């Protein structure tokens, strides 16, 4: 009986234990391989970015599609963000008798953190998934191969333009979202109080300093770059077939969003060293 059990245990541990270890190592190795490939992909972006001829028209078209077409979404979410944050913050400040701080406190939260991060997440959901799906379906239907055989560099035409457009357009969208958000905050303040437009912004700008604004804007370039390059990488290296399209688009959003949080954490650590 005991022997039988022993045999069973060893058999089970052989069957389960070994693959279990391997699974960890495999997953970890897969993860690092993926990071390496993504890094090489971004190196290639910089290499091809500086090499003429430049795809100016396609870049402008992408900037329009990526930036201009995202404006409604960014404006709506920005407004609600500012409004809701103000409404939610008021009771706490009232409790401390610090209601007059409301504009400044909300403004600092929006400009430093909530504006950039929320807008970047929305951007990852809209633009990152769009790029991932578009490139993956171009790959599945051999359009990328078709570019290559007609002697046109598809990396340059498709990838470089999209990453560059995402990198440049996200900061613009964030600035817009911040502005709309502050307006939302102004509306929120006036739901239960009476502060003139002039006074509201006077209070906001009195408390806001350059060191609140600049690092917050700079980090959005990195967010935009991350969303663009992860979306492109996922699409460009999607597996063949139509199911590859869904996988690429999904992975672009998930990994893009996660990267935004990680970058945000890193940036906050770095800026707190200097300021």
């Amino acid at each position, binding site marked *: 009986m005991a022997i039988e059990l022993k045999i069973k245990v060893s058999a089970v541990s052989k069957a389960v234990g070994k693959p279990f270890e391997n699974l960890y190592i495999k997953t970890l190795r897969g993860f690092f391989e993926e990071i390496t490939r993504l890094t090489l992909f971004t190196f290639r972006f910089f290499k091809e970015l500086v090499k003429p*001829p430049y795809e100016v028209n396609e870049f402008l078209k992408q900037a329009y599609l990526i930036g201009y077409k995202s404006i409604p979404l960014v404006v709506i979410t920005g407004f609600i963000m500012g409004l809701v944050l103000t409404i939610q913050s008021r009771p706490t400040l009232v409790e401390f008798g610090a209601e007059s701080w409301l504009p400044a406190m909300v403004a600092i939260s929006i400009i430093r953190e909530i504006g950039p991060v929320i807008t970047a997440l929305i951007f990852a959901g809209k633009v990152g998934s769009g790029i991932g799906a*578009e490139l993956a379906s*171009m790959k599945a*239907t*051999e*359009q990328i*191969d*078709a*570019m*290559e*055989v*007609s*002697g*046109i*560099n598809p990396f340059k035409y498709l990838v470089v333009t999209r990453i560059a457009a995402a990198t440049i357009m996200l900061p613009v969208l964030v600035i817009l979202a911040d502005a709309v958000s502050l307006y939302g905050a102004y509306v929120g303040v006036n739901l239960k109080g009476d502060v003139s437009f002039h006074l509201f912004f006077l209070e906001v700008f009195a408390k806001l300093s350059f060191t609140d604004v600049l690092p917050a804007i700079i980090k959005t370039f990195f967010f935009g770059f991350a969303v663009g390059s992860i979306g492109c990488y996922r699409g460009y290296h999607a597996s063949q077939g139509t199911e590859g399209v869904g996988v690429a688009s999904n992975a672009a959003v998930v990994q893009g969003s996660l990267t935004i949080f990680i970058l945000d954490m890193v940036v906050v650590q770095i800026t707190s060293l200097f300021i």
Partner: protein
Amino acid sequence: MEIVAEVNRITKSFDNREVLKGIDFKIEKGENLVVFGKSGSGKSVLIKCMAGLLSPDDGEVIMLGEKIADLETHELNIIRKRIGFLFQSGALYDSMTVRENLEFPLRDLNQSKKDEIDSLVVEALENVGLKDAIDKMPSELSGGMRKRIGLARTLILKPEIILYDEPTTGLDPITSKEISELILDIQKKYNAASVIITHDVECARITANRMVIIKEGVVVAAGTFQELSKSSDQWVRSFFS
């Protein structure tokens, strides 16, 4: 006769699975060579090696006198402008109109000559009988029309070698026949050499000057359509019945 392309003992594996095991053939100027084989026999892999989209593990591909593997990117791009490739699905750029699709391969030629580009586009569309589709989007076209537009885009640079990947697959018999006849017209008009990859006997019968049959990654038979259809090999003959 002048040899325009050569495939010498090329092999190609994916994940330890050998798809091509040493394929050999030559193509003469102005000739239609049909490469015949079952689905999954590696025909697309072969033609992609010829266009430099995949690099063979071993062996060499010589196109228009140049070894593809030895070329720098810009040299490869110059050669590629002289080679046309019709993809299985047509591979039209779906974010662009038919006109923009056709202009795309011309984009690094002289941009200034707008009239010339326009007349090239119209000419290419006339050759495939679809002049009216010029301002349509690819999503508005039928399968047969997409193939024709794909062909027009391939022809716009007046290639010296044309690679066709399953030009008639997925089309009804009548449209298939039209496409096969179009391939013959193009052969006459452009005097280009063509490699036609197919598993469609009717297409092979119409277009082939010469055929090779591949099976499990090697060439098992070569000859004219007539010769192969009377082959003593049971397996080869089975395709033609």
